[in-house]
C-alpha cells in the first residue's frame, strides 16, 4: 500500500497532515542552535527567537510535551538573570577606569578561604552588557532545544534508537503508557482513603496512598510481562557466538580507546596521537559494536516515518543557517559579536540575518501535525458507540443486553475476512 504511493512534492505534502520525521526537526533545531552559538549580536539572537516562535506556533501538536516551550522561554530568562546577577555581585570590574560605571556595590571583604574571589565593587555598563549578550546567547540555545522537544514527537524519536538500545526504548515506551494509569490509580486510592476514615496525618496517610499504588503498579507489571512474553518480546535474531564475541571485543576495545583518548586529550604532555585520533578510533569501535549488537534483535516498525522532500527542506534550512553564520558571510567586523568595550549599538548584518530567516521556511514547508479528534478523553455511552463502530464493517446485531443466543446470528451473518 505504501509502495504505491508516489513521491510527493513538497507542495502536495504539506497539505496532508502528518508528523514530520523527528530527526528532521532535531537537525533543524541543532542547526539553528549552532548558528546562535556563533553570534552574541542581540538583534540576530532575537531573530533566531522569532523564527523559533513562528515555527513552534505553527507546527506544534497538541501532545503534552508540546506545551513545554514556554518553560524553555522562562528558563532562558532565568539564565540571562543568573549571568547578569553573578556578573554584578562577583564580577566587580577592577579596572573600571575607562568604563561607564553604573553604580558601585560595597566591596565585601571575604574570609581567607575565599581569597581571590571578588564580592561587590563597581558595576559597569560594559560588563553588564557583555553578561547580558552571552546570557541571551545561552538562553537562545536553550530555546532551540526546547523547540526541538516541542516539535519532534518523542515516541517517534525512540524508533531511531539503535537496535542495541532496544530495551531502553521498550522500558521508556512502557513507562510512557503506564504513567497515565498510575496517575489514575493515585487519584482512586486517595479518594478511597476517606472510606477508611483517613485518620492521622503525614506518615500514615503517605503510606496509605503509596503502598496501594505501588503494589498495584508492581502487580500490573507482572501481568504486562506475561503479556509481553507471550506476544513475542525478546525474540532474538539468532546471532552466532562468533559475532557476539566480536561485539564484546569491539565494545571493550572501544571503551579502552575512549579512555586513552580522553586521557590524551586532558594531558598536554601525552603524545599527540593519544588525543583526538584515539578518541575517534575508540568511538568508531564502539559504534561498530553497537551496530552489530543491534542485529540480535530482529524487529520492524509499523508505519515507519518517511523521509520525504519536506524533511530535506526543513533539515536543510537549519543546516544552511548554521553554515551561513559559520562562514560569517556578509558580516563585517563586529557584526556577529558587537563590541561592548567600547559601547556600540549593535547593527544587523544582512547576510546572517537572511541565513537565519531561511530557517523560518520550516513553518510553511513542514506538513501540519495531525490533530486528533477531540472528545476522546471520555468514553461515550457504550450502545451508541458500538453501533457506529460496527456499521462500517458489517451489519451486527443490535448490542442490547440480550441473551447470548443472539451471538450465533452475528457469527453467521459476518461475511468472512474483510478484504
Amino acid at each position, binding site marked *: 500500500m505504501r509502495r504505491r504511493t508516489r513521491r510527493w512534492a513538497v507542495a502536495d505534502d504539506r497539505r496532508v497532515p502528518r508528523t514530520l520525521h523527528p530527526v528532521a526537526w532535531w537537525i533543524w533545531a541543532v542547526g539553528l542552535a549552532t548558528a546562535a552559538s556563533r553570534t552574541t549580536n542581540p538583534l540576530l539572537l532575537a531573530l533566531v527567537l522569532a523564527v523559533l516562535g513562528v515555527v513552534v506556533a505553527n507546527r506544534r501538536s497538541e501532545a503534552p510535551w508540546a506545551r513545554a516551550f514556554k*518553560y524553555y522561554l522562562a*528558563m532562558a530568562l532565568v539564565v540571562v538573570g543568573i549571568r547578569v546577577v553573578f*556578573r554584578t555581585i562577583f564580577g566587580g570590574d577592577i579596572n573600571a577606569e575607562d568604563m561607564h560605571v553604573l553604580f558601585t556595590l560595597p566591596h565585601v571583604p571575604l574570609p581567607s578561604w575565599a581569597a581571590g574571589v571578588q564580592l561587590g565593587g563597581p558595576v559597569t555598563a560594559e560588563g553588564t552588557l557583555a553578561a547580558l549578550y552571552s546570557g541571551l546567547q*545561552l538562553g537562545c540555545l536553550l530555546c532551540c532545544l526546547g523547540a526541538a*522537544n516541542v516539535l519532534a514527537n518523542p515516541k517517534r524519536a525512540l524508533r531511531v534508537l539503535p537496535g542495541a538500545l532496544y530495551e531502553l526504548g521498550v522500558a521508556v515506551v512502557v513507562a510512557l503508557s503506564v504513567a497515565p494509569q498510575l496517575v489514575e490509580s493515585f487519584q482512586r486510592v486517595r479518594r478511597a482513603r476517606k472510606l477508611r476514615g483517613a485518620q492521622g496525618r503525614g506518615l500514615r496517610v503517605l503510606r496509605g496512598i503509596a503502598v496501594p499504588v505501588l503494589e498495584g503498579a508492581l502487580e500490573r507489571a507482572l501481568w504486562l510481562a506475561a503479556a509481553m512474553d507471550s506476544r513475542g518480546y525478546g525474540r532474538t535474531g539468532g546471532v552466532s557466538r562468533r559475532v557476539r564475541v566480536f561485539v564484546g571485543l569491539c565494545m571493550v576495545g572501544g571503551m579502552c580507546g575512549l579512555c586513552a583518548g580522553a586521557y590524551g586529550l586532558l594531558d598536554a604532555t601525552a603524545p599527540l596521537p593519544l588525543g583526538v585520533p584515539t578518541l575517534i578510533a575508540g568511538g568508531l569501535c564502539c559504534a561498530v559494536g553497537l551496530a552489530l549488537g543491534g542485529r540480535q534483535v530482529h524487529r520492524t516498525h509499523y508505519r515507519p516515518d518517511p523521509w520525504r522532500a519536506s524533511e530535506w527542506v526543513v533539515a536543510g534550512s537549519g543546516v544552511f543557517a548554521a553554515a551561513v553564520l559559520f562562514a560569517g558571510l556578509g558580516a563585517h567586523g563586529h557584526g556577529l559579536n558587537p563590541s561592548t568595550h567600547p559601547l556600540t549599538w549593535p547593527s544587523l548584518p544582512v547576510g546572517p540575518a537572511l541565513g537565519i530567516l531561511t530557517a523560518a521556511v520550516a513553518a510553511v514547508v513542514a506538513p501540519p501535525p495531525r490533530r486528533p479528534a477531540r472528545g476522546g478523553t471520555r468514553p461515550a455511552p457504550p450502545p451508541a458507540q458500538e453501533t457506529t463502530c460496527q456499521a462500517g464493517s458489517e451489519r451486527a446485531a443490535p448490542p442490547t443486553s440480550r441473551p447470548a443466543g443472539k451471538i450465533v446470528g452475528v457469527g453467521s451473518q459476518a461475511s468472512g475476512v474483510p478484504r
Partner: protein
Amino acid sequence: MTAGVRPPTPRGGERRWGEGQRHRVAIPIGVRPTAVIVLASFLGFVAFCWPFVVAPGSFGDSTMAPVMFGALLVLVLAVLFSEIADGGIDAKAIAILGVLSAIGAALRPLDAGTAGVELVFFTLVLAGRVFGPGFGFVLGCTTLFASALITGGVGPWMPYQMFGCAWVGMFAGWLPPARGRRELLMLAAYGSVAAYAYGFMLNLSFWPFTLGPGSSVSFVPGASLLTNVHRYLVFDGTTSLGWDTGRAITTAACILILGPPMLAAFRRAARRAAFEAPSVFYDPSTSEPLPAILDAAPATTAGIFQDPHGNVPAPVRSPEPGI
C-alpha cells in the same frame, strides 16, 4: 489473574531473602559488563570533572569541551546500556523497569528545583537495593529518559543527569548486606550522601558555561587545578548547597518513612516475579530429562513433582530467564 501469571505460593519453601539475594537480581551482570562499567565510570568521571583535570591549552575553544564530553557521555551510556542488557533483559525486569520509571517520571515534576530530582532518588535507591546494581543502573537511565520525554526536557544536560542517576541506583545495589533498622539507616545515609554528590557533579557539568567568563567564580580555562576547585567550591556553596541539602533531607526522610513498606513491596514483587526461577521439564515417557534447554547449573530437588511411575527424575534446569 492473567493467563499463567500464577506466582509461586508466597508461603512455604521460599528462600530467605538475605542469603538468596545475590542469586535473584533482576538483571545480572557478567564479567564483560563489569569491565565496561569500570571503564565507563572512568570516562563518566572525566566527563563530569574535566574542568579540574584539563591541561592548559588542550581545548582551543572553551565551548568545544562540554559539547565533546556530552557526546562522549551519550556514546558511553549507549555502550554501557547495551552491555548490561546483553542478550536481552527479561520481560519481567523490563515491565518492572517501565513501571518504576513511570513512577519516577511522574514524581519528578513535583519538585521545584531545576537540577533537583528529590523525589526520584528514594525510589532509585530502594529499587537498586532490592533488584540489584544492574537494575539500579538501568532504572536511573530509563527514569530520567522517560521523564525528559514526557516533559520535553531533552538536551545536552540529559546524559549527565542519566549518568548521575544511574550511578546512584547502581551503587545502591552494591551496598553491604544488612537487615531491619540498620538497613534503613544505611540506605537513608547513602541517599543523602548520594544527593549531595549528585548535586556536586551536576553543577560541575554546567558550571563552565553557565556563568560565562568575567565573574570571579567562573571557570578559568587553563588555570591551575587549585584555582578552579576553589572557584567551583565557592560557586557550589553559594548557589546550590541549599538545594542539595533540601534534596538530601527529603531523600533521607522519604527512605525512613516509606522505606519499610516499599522495600517489602519490592521484595514481594521480586519474589513473585521469580527472577531466574528454575523451570524444569521432565518427560515420563522416556524417563529421562530432555536435552531441550539444558543448563550447567547443578540440579536442585526442591519442589520437583515425582512422576506417577515412581521414577525420581534428575531434574533439568532451564536457564530462565535467558539473560
